[in-house]
C-alpha cells in the first residue's frame, strides 16, 4: 500500500548482503546453501519477494517454527470456543498448546466454551493396537459431559497418521450416532514444513465438513460480512468487530477468533469476506469466492494510517452509507490517535525495530511502528510463502534484511549488527534478546497484553511499545563495576 521508497541511514543493499554473507559463514557448506536463498535484502520498489520460503527447516538449527498440528490446533481450531477440540494422540501436543496462544473466547468454561485440554492420552498399547476404538468412546464421553458443545474436532497427532488409524470413519460414524458435528482433521505434526500446512489442512477440513451445514436464522442484509483471519489474541476480534460495526457492517461470523461453529458453517451466506491474516485463511476465502461468489478483501487494522486506508478500501465495496460512516469514523478517531502519537512519538522517534513473527504481523505491523516514528530494520516470517513476501516488500524500507525461518543464530547475528531498540518476536526469542539488554515484546501473544487491532488496539500497542523501549530497567543491565 506504500508507494514511497523508504531508506534507512546506514543500510544499503551491499551492507545487508555483506551481513548475510557473514552470518552464513558459520554454516557447513550444505547448510549454507540451503539457508542462503532464505535471506535477502528487500527491494521495496520491486514489490516482490527477495527470499525463498515454505521449505523444510534445516536440521540442527534453532527454528521458531511449529508443526501442522500447531497450526491446526493453535490457530484455526482452538479459537472456536464452542467446540470440544480433542488432541488425538499422546498427551504432550495438547498440553503444550493448552492456553498458550491467548485466543480469547466468550462463554462459560465447561458449559458453553471449552478452552481446555482434551486428549486421548495415547499409551503404548494405543500405538500397537490403534486408537480408533478409544476415540469412539471418548467422543461419547465428551458429548455426555459437555452437552452444549456445538461440535467436536479430532486433531490428529503424529502417531495417528503413522499407525494407520482411520479417524475420518470414526468421526463420521460417531457424528451420526451422537447427532453432532464431529470434525476429523488430519493435521499430524510431521506433515509439511511448518504450521502453515496445518492452516491449509484445517481450511480444507472446514470446506469439507463445515461450510454450508448451517444457515443464519435472520434475514440477510447487503452489509453482511465475515471477519476472517483474526484469532482474537488478547481480544483483537472484539476491537476489530466493534470498529466494523461502527462503520455499519454486520459481522456475521468471526474466523476463528472467539469463533462459533454454527456461524462459521453459515458464512457462505455473507456478502464479503474481510481477511486480516492472509496466510492462514486465504484458502477458504478463495473457496468461498469460487463456490459461492463471495468476494474477499485484505485489510490491515494495525495503526491509524493503515486502519484509515483499510476502512476506505472496505468502504469502496459498499454504498454511500458505509462510505459516509467511514469518513465520520475516521474523523472521530483521527484526533484521538493523534493524541496518542503526540504522547509516545517523542519518546520513540527514530527507534529501530526488528520483527520475526508469523502470519500477517511481519508486514502488517510495520505501519503501526511507523505511526510512532519507528523504523523497521529487519523482518521475517516463521512459515510464510512467496505471496506473503511479495506483500511484504512494499511495506519494508528498502535494502533492509528479510529472513525466512531464520535460525536463532542468524537472528542473533542480525540483531547484533543492526542494534535494534526493540525486537518483536516470540517467547523462544524473548529472553535471549533481553539477556543482551535489547527491549523485546512477544508479538505473537502481544506479550500478555492487547488487543492491538483497530483504534482501540493502537492505544495499547503504543503504550506497550513505549513501555518496552523506554523501561528504565534496560539502563541497569550493564553493571557500573
Amino acid at each position: 500500500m506504500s508507494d514511497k521508497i523508504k531508506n534507512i541511514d546506514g543500510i544499503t543493499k551491499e551492507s545487508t548482503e555483506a551481513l548475510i554473507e557473514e552470518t552464513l559463514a558459520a554454516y557447513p557448506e550444505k547448510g549454507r546453501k540451503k539457508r542462503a536463498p532464505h535471506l535477502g535484502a528487500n527491494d521495496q520498489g520491486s514489490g516482490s519477494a527477495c527470499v525463498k520460503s515454505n521449505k523444510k527447516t534445516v536440521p540442527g538449527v534453532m527454528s521458531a517454527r511449529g508443526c501442522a498440528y500447531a497450526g491446526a490446533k493453535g490457530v484455526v481450531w482452538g479459537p472456536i470456543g464452542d467446540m470440544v477440540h480433542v488432541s488425538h494422540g499422546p498427551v504432550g501436543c495438547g498440553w503444550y498448546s493448552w492456553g498458550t496462544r491467548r485466543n480469547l473466547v466468550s462463554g462459560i468454561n465447561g458449559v458453553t466454551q471449552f478452552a481446555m485440554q482434551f486428549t486421548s492420552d495415547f499409551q503404548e498399547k494405543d500405538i500397537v493396537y490403534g486408537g480408533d476404538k478409544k476415540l469412539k468412546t471418548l467422543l461419547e464421553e465428551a458429548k455426555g459431559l459437555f452437552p452444549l458443545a456445538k461440535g467436536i474436532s479430532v486433531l490428529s497427532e503424529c502417531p495417528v497418521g503413522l499407525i494407520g488409524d482411520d479417524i475420518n470413519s470414526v468421526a463420521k460414524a460417531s457424528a451420526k450416532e451422537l447427532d453432532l458435528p464431529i470434525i476429523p482433521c488430519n493435521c499430524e505434526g510431521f506433515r509439511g514444513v511448518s504450521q502453515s500446512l496445518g492452516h491449509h489442512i484445517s481450511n480444507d477440513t472446514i470446506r469439507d465438513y463445515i461450510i454450508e451445514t448451517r444457515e443464519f436464522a435472520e434475514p440477510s442484509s447487503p452489509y453482511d460480512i465475515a471477519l476472517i483471519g483474526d484469532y482474537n489474541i488478547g481480544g483483537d476480534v472484539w476491537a476489530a468487530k466493534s470498529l466494523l460495526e461502527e462503520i455499519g457492517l454486520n459481522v456475521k461470523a468471526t474466523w476463528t477468533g472467539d469463533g462459533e461453529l454454527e456461524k462459521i458453517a453459515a458464512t457462505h451466506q455473507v456478502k464479503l469476506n474481510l481477511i486480516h491474516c492472509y496466510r492462514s485463511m486465504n484458502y477458504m476465502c478463495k473457496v468461498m469466492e469460487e463456490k459461492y461468489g463471495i468476494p474477499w478483501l485484505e485489510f490491515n487494522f494495525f495503526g491509524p494510517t493503515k486502519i484509515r486506508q483499510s476502512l476506505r478500501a472496505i468502504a469502496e465495496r459498499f454504498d454511500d452509507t458505509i462510505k459516509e460512516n467511514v469518513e465520520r469514523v475516521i474523523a472521530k478517531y483521527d484526533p484521538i490517535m493523534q493524541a496518542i502519537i503526540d504522547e509516545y512519538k517523542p519518546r520513540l522517534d527514530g527507534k529501530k525495530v526488528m520483527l520475526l513473527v508469523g502470519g500477517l504481523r511481519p508486514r502488517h505491523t510495520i505501519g503501526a511502528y511507523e505511526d510512532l516514528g519507528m523504523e523497521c530494520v529487519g523482518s521475517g516470517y516463521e512459515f510464510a510463502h512467496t505471496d506473503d513476501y511479495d506483500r511484504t516488500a512494499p511495506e519494508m524500507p528498502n535494502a533492509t534484511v528479510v529472513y525466512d525461518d531464520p535460525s536463532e543464530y542468524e537472528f542473533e547475528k542480525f540483531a547484533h549488527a543492526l542494534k535494534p531498540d526493540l525486537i518483536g518476536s516470540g517467547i523462544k526469542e524473548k529472553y535471549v534478546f533481553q539477556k543482551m539488554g535489547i527491549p523485546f515484546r512477544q508479538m505473537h501473544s502481544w506479550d500478555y497484553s492487547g488487543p492491538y487491532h483497530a483504534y482501540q488496539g493502537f492505544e495499547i500497542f503504543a503504550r506497550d511499545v513505549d513501555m518496552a523501549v523506554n523501561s528504565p530497567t534496560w539502563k541497569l543491565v550493564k553493571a557500573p563495576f
Partner: protein
Amino acid sequence: MANLLGLEVKKIVATPPEEIERVKNWINSEEYKEQNFARQALVINPAHACQPLGAQLAAHGFEGTLPFVHGSQGCASYYRSTLNRHFREPAPAVSDAMTEDGAVFGGQNNLHEGLENAVALYKPKMIAVFTSCMPEVIGDDLTAFIKNARTKGHVPKDMPVPFANTPSFNGTHIHGYDSMLLSILQTLTEGKQVEGRCTGKLNLIAGCDFNTADYREYKRIMKEFGVPLTVLADIADSFDSPCNGTYNIYAGGTPLEDAADSINGKATMTLGPYATPKTFSWIKDNYAGKHVSLPMPMGIEKTDAMIMKVAELFGKEVPESLKNERGRAVDAMTDAQQYMHGKKFAVYGDPDYLVGYVSFLLEMGAHPYHIVCSRGSKKLEKELQGLLDGSMYGKGCKIYMNKDLWHLRSLVMTDPVDAMIGDSHGKFAARDANIPLFRFGFPVFDRVNMHRYPRIGYQGVIYMVSQICNKFLDIKDETCEDRFFELMR
C-alpha cells in the same frame, strides 16, 4: 457440498439461557462428578506433559550441552516455549526437523545433517539427543545412527552424544528426565571408574525439579555442611542466568568432568525417587560409594531425613548454622500454624512434589484433602497413604490416582477445600471454586519468580508458610466485614 458427515443442514438456534443455567449448575453436581469419574477414554486437563520435555530439562543441566530433539521441529518448539514461559529464560535446543519423508526413509539423514549444523552453529561440548513421537513410532535405531554419525564425521570424535528414547505415549516428563539423565551419566562415566579412587564428593540428584532455587539451596546446604558436591543435572544457572548484556547460550550446568568423575563419588543421593528410578538403579549397580534414595526434602521431616543422611554418609555433625535454620523454620511454623491449621487443600502434580506437599501440610496441621496425580503408581499411592495414616490430619483425605484436573474440578466443587497447590493449569478449577492456588509446581506461566524461591529444605518451609498464610490473610482482609477488619492478624 461441504457436509461429508451427511448431517442435516439446520438454521442456527441459540442455546436457551435456562438450558445454559441448568448445565452450569449441573457440572458442579455430585451427579456430574460421578459421570465425570466414569470416564474411560477421554482425558481432560491432565497435569502432566510428555517425556521429551523432561529429557530436555535434564540435558540443560550439563555444561555446554545442546539438547537435540530427534523429531519434528514443532515438538522442540513446544518443549522450548514451555520452559521459556515457566522460567522466563531462554531454553536453547535444536531439532532435526523430521518431516513426512522421515516416515518412509527414517530419520538418519536428518539426524546427521542436524548434528553437523548444530556443532557448527552452537559449538556445544555435548549434544543430548532425545526423541519425539515420530522416530519412536517408525522405530529409528538411535544407537546405530549416532555411531554412524561419528564414523562419518558429522560429529567430532570426542564429543559425547548421549541419547534417550523418550516416547510421548508412555509415562510423563519425569520419565523422560530419567532416561536422558541415565544416558548422559552412562555416556560421560564410561571408562571413568577408577578402582580405589574416591572423589570424596556427594552426587546429588534433585530429580525432575523445575525450581532453580531448589538446586541453589542444595548447594548452599552442602556448603554449610562442608560436603563437596556434584549436582547431577544442575539447572540452577541454566535457567536463572544474569541479565548483563551478554547472552550465554550455555549458562550453568554440571561440569562434564565432574559428571564423569561422579562414578567415583563417595555417595550418591537421589531426592527425586519417582523421577529417577532407572538412573538410581543403574547407579546402584555401577557407581562407587553409598547409594541413597530419599523423598524430596519438603517440610521439616523430609529435610531432617536428608540432613541426617548426609551427616551419616560423611561422618559429620550437623553444623550449628543448619540447626539454627531448622529452628527458624520451625519457628515460622509455630508462629503461623494457626493460619493453616485445619485448612483443607487440594494438591496435584508430579509424584515427588506430591509427597512433599502432603508431608508439609500434615506437619502444619492442614489436611491434604484431595490428592490428585494424573499419572501415578501403586507405589506412590502407598507412600501417600502411609503419610495420611501417620497423622490425625490425614483422616478423611483421599488419593485419586490417574485422575486429571477435570476430575479435580468435580472434587473441589462438590467437596470444597480452602486452597489448591499445584501448577498454573489448576487456576481454572481454583477460580470456579473461588479459592487460591499456590503455584508451587510446574509449570507456572502466570506469576513471576516462583522458581527463584526454594520449596525444599528449611528455607522452603519458610517460603511455603509465608506464601500460604499471607495469602489466607490477604483473603481475610479483602473479604471480611468492616467490623472484622483489623490491624492485627
